[in-house]
């Protein structure tokens, strides 16, 4: 058996592998026999006290009950059995299907007719009520399925979600598989191993299944399209970045290289005109320029990795002192002549962050402060918490940034001032790292002169800490 999925993109076959279910029908007939038996026993007991017509009423009540519970087949069987039992046990001569009084022929016919008609009517009523109930349930299922699918972006998740809903509808495990073929089209097949055949064959349920598979097909298709759009946007952005990198960076790479090559060639000549102090200066310059190149290349690599989405943020619970201490140690050479104060709020909780990325962020902010403020100008580093956020500030007493919107400082290839010696990537990297942590970074003018860079990171419930120990 196959169903056509209602989707132009997934015109697939809906395959169902079904094993008919007999158990329920057998149970209905067994109940009919049992009910008639019980009613006959009751009829025999009360037959002395009541008219035979009353016993017939009791039988009809049994037929109605069987019809309401098990449907038409068992109810018809119950009607026939009722007539037979009535004749056999309650109509003289007893224990034979023959009867003396010819009027009983009419009684039996009417009893059988009323029984069968009741069975049919009850069955129809039952079917209508059940259909209404299942339609309602199916509409609700469809609604919740489409709502959930709208949030999903990956095909396995979509298939799993649809499987869950269909299985809940059928009350039976199912498997839904998509076999994509050329041009984005594909076939969806639904397998219901050992499922209830009679129910699936019912037009209402079948229609509902088709609708669910159709919705799933549409969701799969739009997920595929969204992924493709994202891919091409990423490609375009990478291209754009590569272009601006080349134009902006070639100058910045060549300048230190030229100084290094030049200085080294002078030293190699070993000319007598170069005195010892000049030699030392040239060596110093080679060292500094190489360090500058290293920073530049490091920032370029970091930016490329961050904007290509190749960086995975590995968050750990860390005391904020740790990345701060590490960044200060790495920036030591540049900070040596600077008055620097570090103020970390008392009782600062653990912060969930990627230590290596966060150290990079701090290092870039510190290098930035060193680069754009005069030597000897103080730098302050503060950490505190507010409104379930960790806040980290680096404040300087430099000349501040040129006028203009402060957010623009965080754009790639934006330099605070010409001649600063950077490529304009440091703050862009800071912003990318802050965003990757679910946080933000802002810059503002500091009252009394200078700049404040402020990083905010979301805090969450800290993990359980070891029980405190007694002092040793």
């Amino acid at each position, binding site marked *: 058996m196959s169903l056509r999925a209602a989707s132009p993109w997934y015109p697939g076959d809906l395959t169902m592998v079904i094993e008919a279910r007999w158990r329920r029908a057998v149970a209905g007939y067994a109940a009919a026999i049992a009910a008639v038996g019980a009613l006959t026993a009751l009829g025999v007991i009360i037959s002395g006290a009541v008219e035979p017509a009353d016993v017939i009423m009791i039988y009809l009540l049994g037929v109605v009950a069987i019809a309401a519970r098990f449907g038409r087949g068992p109810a018809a069987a119950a009607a026939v059995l009722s007539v037979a039992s009535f004749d056999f046990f309650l109509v003289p001569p007893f224990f034979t299907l023959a009867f003396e009084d010819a009027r009983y022929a009419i009684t039996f016919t009417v009893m059988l007719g009323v029984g069968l008609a009741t069975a049919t009517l009850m069955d129809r009523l039952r079917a209508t009520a059940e259909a209404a109930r299942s339609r309602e349930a199916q509409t609700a299922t469809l609604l919740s399925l489409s709502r959930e699918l709208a949030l999903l972006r990956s095909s396995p998740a979509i298939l799993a979600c649809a499987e869950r809903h269909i299985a809940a509808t059928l009350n039976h495990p199912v498997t839904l598989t998509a076999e994509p073929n050329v041009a984005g089209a594909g076939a969806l097949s639904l397998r219901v191993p050992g499922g209830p055949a009679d129910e699936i064959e019912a037009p209402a349920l079948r229609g509902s299944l088709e609708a669910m598979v159709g919705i799933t097909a549409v969701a799969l298709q739009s997920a595929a399209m969204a992924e493709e759009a994202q891919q091409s946007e990423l490609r375009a952005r990478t291209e754009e970045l590569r272009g601006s990198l080349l134009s902006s960076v070639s100058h910045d790479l060549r300048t230190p290289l030229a100084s290094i090559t030049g200085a080294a060639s002078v030293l190699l000549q070993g000319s007598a005109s170069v005195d010892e102090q000049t030699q030392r200066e040239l060596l110093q310059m080679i060292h500094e320029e190489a360090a500058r190149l290293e920073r530049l290349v490091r920032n370029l690599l970091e930016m490329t990795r961050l904007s290509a989405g190749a960086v995975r943020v590995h968050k750990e*619970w860390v005391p904020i002192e740790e990345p701060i201490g590490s960044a200060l140690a790495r920036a030591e050479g540049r900070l040596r002549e600077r008055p620097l104060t570090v103020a970390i709020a008392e009782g600062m909780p653990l912060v969930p962050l990627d230590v290596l990325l966060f*150290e990079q962020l701090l290092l870039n902010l510190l290098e930035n402060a060193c680069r754009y403020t005069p030597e000897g100008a103080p730098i302050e580093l503060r950490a505190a918490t507010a409104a379930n956020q960790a806040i980290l500030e680096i404040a300087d007493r430099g000349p501040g940034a040129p006028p203009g919107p402060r957010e623009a400082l965080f754009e790639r290839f934006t330099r605070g001032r010409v001649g600063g010696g950077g490529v304009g990537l440091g703050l862009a990297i800071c912003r990318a790292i802050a965003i990757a942590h679910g946080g933000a970074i802002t810059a503002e003018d500091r009252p009394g002169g200078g700049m404040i860079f402020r990083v905010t990171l979301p805090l969450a419930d800290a993990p359980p800490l070891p029980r405190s*120990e007694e002092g*040793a």
Partner: protein
Amino acid sequence: MSDAGPLVLIIDDEAPMRRFLRVALVAQGYRTVEAGGVAEGLRRAVEHNPDLFLLDLGLPDGDGLELTRQLREWSKAPIIVISARGQEADKVRVLDCGADDYLTKPFSMGELMARIRVALRHAARWSPRSEPVITFGEVQIDLSSRTVSRGGRALRLTPHEYKLLTTLAGHAGKVLTHRQLLLAVWGPGHVEQTHYLRVYMAQLRQKIEDEPARPRWLVTELGVGYRLRGDGDAP
């Protein structure tokens, strides 16, 4: 040192890097052997039985981890790993696997020499530190009476803080990974609980350091572990 100085095997695929290391080491009185890859490194190691290995992590013909494992099967000589920034996970694996220390490119001569000195010193000591008192800066640890003092004043340390400090002090100058420290202080049941270690380290710094946010002695090796900077080991 005489011409019988310690023999260092440099395993690095970059010829300029090997040259820089050779020049630097020879100037300090070390003897050097060089290898350009894993296979050659193993061969040279067997031929010369060096006193120390300098191993670059980014070798083209194989895995530094595997090489470390193979060397550790027969050699106790210290292995110092040279790596780029961003290879922290690889570094941790190699350190947990038996390497002794690491250097991140670019590094200075001073750092290189300090690491080599520490590694050779630890290698020369067969038994655990026998002297009962360890001193760095103003801090004094008396192992026999299990007391720690700073500037003559006794410090109150919890048992875990004491264990952490003595573990680091027993390997002064050498990096210890998070895993190694957790194993030594908390035991094998807690090797994943890195935040325990971080919290205790922060507490210890509060007690030991003048400026806990700019530690002088208990240095963070970010993404790898911690190091107690011994007297005279500063680069």
